[in-house]
């Protein structure tokens, strides 16, 4: 029965996708309600994807080169954001002194949009991968901190008392009680952070690039090539979906109990 309903869900999803592309095609190539200069048809987008797979023109890199460059930047930024952000959120939530000393700085930094850091990044870190990854990091780091902080704070006091009654030290209580409780929050933070990191990519690649999906979108705009812009958007969407699905699977493995 469950298998049947899953199949039904998959069929509905496929039909909705086909309907979406069919309406898009009708509005663009068939009835020309929307000019191709504003929105290229799905067929044109597919042709551009095929062409960009091996051709560098007009933006200087092939699509795989753009994807690799962006994965490098967003991957590095996201990993740094997660590696630094999650422990920082946990520390701030668990140790009051850390909270008192770090939270004001964090609250100040988190309100600054990542794009505003670009001029400082150029001077401090140049225009290489590290500088771009730092812009992505600033965007990815904040949801990680906030969610892990909230997750730890959400630990029920009674659970902590039980751990303490059984002789658990503060650190052991953190690892055995608070962090497992916070895991769903932490994973939500990671997923939000992943989306933010791809969102910050276009801004990061404004910093000075020779390749990357954000760069390709910018070049598409400069050259008035709406097809390049849409290809960039679609590829970012596909990669984002794949990475989110990976995080979902990881969450199911790591988080004990039902994930809501």
């Amino acid at each position, binding site marked *: 029965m469950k298998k049947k309903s899953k199949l039904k869900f998959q069929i509905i999803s496929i039909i909705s996708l086909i309907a979406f592309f069919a309406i898009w095609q009708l509005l663009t190539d068939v009835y020309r309600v929307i000019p191709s200069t504003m929105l290229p048809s799905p067929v044109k987008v597919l042709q551009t994807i095929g062409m960009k797979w091996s051709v560098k023109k007009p933006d200087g890199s092939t699509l795989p080169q753009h994807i690799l460059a962006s994965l490098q930047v967003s991957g590095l930024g996201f990993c740094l954001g997660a590696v630094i952000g999650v422990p920082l959120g946990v520390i701030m939530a668990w140790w009051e002194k850390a909270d008192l000393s770090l939270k004001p700085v964090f609250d100040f930094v988190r309100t600054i949009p990542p794009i505003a850091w670009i001029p400082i990044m150029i*001077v401090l870190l140049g225009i290489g991968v590290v500088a771009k990854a730092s812009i992505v990091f600033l965007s990815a780091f904040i949801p990680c901190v906030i969610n892990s902080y909230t997750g730890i704070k959400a630990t029920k006091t009674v659970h902590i008392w039980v751990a303490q009654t059984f002789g658990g030290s503060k650190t052991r209580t953190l690892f055995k009680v608070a962090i497992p409780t916070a895991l769903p929050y932490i994973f939500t933070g990671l997923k939000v952070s992943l989306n933010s990191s791809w969102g910050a990519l276009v801004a990061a690649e404004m910093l000075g690039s*020779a390749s990357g999906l954000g760069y390709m979108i910018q070049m598409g705009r*400069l050259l008035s090539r709406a097809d390049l812009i849409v290809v960039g958007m679609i590829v970012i969407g596909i990669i984002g979906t794949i990475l989110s699905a990976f995080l979902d699977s990881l969450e199911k493995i790591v988080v004990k109990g039902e994930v809501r």
Partner: protein
Amino acid sequence: MKKKAAAVLMAAITAAAASLGTVTALAAEEEPVTIRVATLAQQLSLPMYYISEQGWDVENGFKLEITTFSQGTGINEALGSGLVDVCTIGAAGVNSCCIYDAVYLFSHEDSAAGQQVMVRNDSPIAQEKGYLEDYPELLGSPETIKDATILLPMGTGSQINVDTYLDRFGLTEDDVTLVNMDTAPAYQAFVSGEGDMAHTCYPTADEYDPEQYTVAFSMNTVGLPYYDNIIASRSFFEDEKNHDALVALCVQLLRTAETFKDDTVLMDTMMAWYELNGQTVDRDKIEHQVLERPFFTYEDLSSIDATASFKIMAEFYATIGNITEEDLEHVFANMDDTIISEALSVYAETYL
């Protein structure tokens, strides 16, 4: 009695409608054609501002409605959305004609000055001068240029400048790394030690310290004409009732170019244009920048091929794959000289 009253009422209504119709018709006759003009907060758009300020638009049967954009890309998007009738634009004008089917009317300003690429004085590129006999001012040699990283705003006239320079040495884009950056961040990155060369233009060009940086090449030294252009949207151009207004606008642009031969008028207008756009500039500092980029007068347009730059840009875009060969034909087909030819005749009759 009722019939009489009804007849009087009908007569009154008819008379009122007739008089209203006459008033509307008269108003329509006198109403100047509104031209929605897209400008940039740069020198190329100065004549539009001047025409509007002098009231030369209304007295010649059209009304300029000026909107200022930050980049040619934004102008193209507005053109594509039908929000703009005429624009002042640089290299992005090729995309206007190619993608948005706009019409090139003529080039109105020589803006090659200041479009240059900087190199550090201690760079190996700066040590080589006169490698090419035909272009003695160019710095560098194929060996020193190869593998260099160049910071530039891609997809603009700057890319044409860089590619022409590379071509003079038998190199292509594949031999160097081109990093897309606007001129102001490129300056910031270059002085922070990034890249081997950085493209610049006015006003940023004057920020480079001559003790540390030198001009490797410019549009003038690579022998590349670079003109700014007047472009009209296809729908506005094809509407017969706008024809006279377009001719009148071009006549007034020629009149403005003649007026701008007076340096004081030109500088005063430039300062006012910058101020209007929230830019604080030092008059003495920018004077040479402004004077080095002259507007084309009647005499200029009668003696030079003002379309050369636009054609070169279009051909260049086709060479590097920004547009296809078919698109190139489309751009050439969208270069229409009827308006400017007529404007030159009217100008000669009226002002010479």
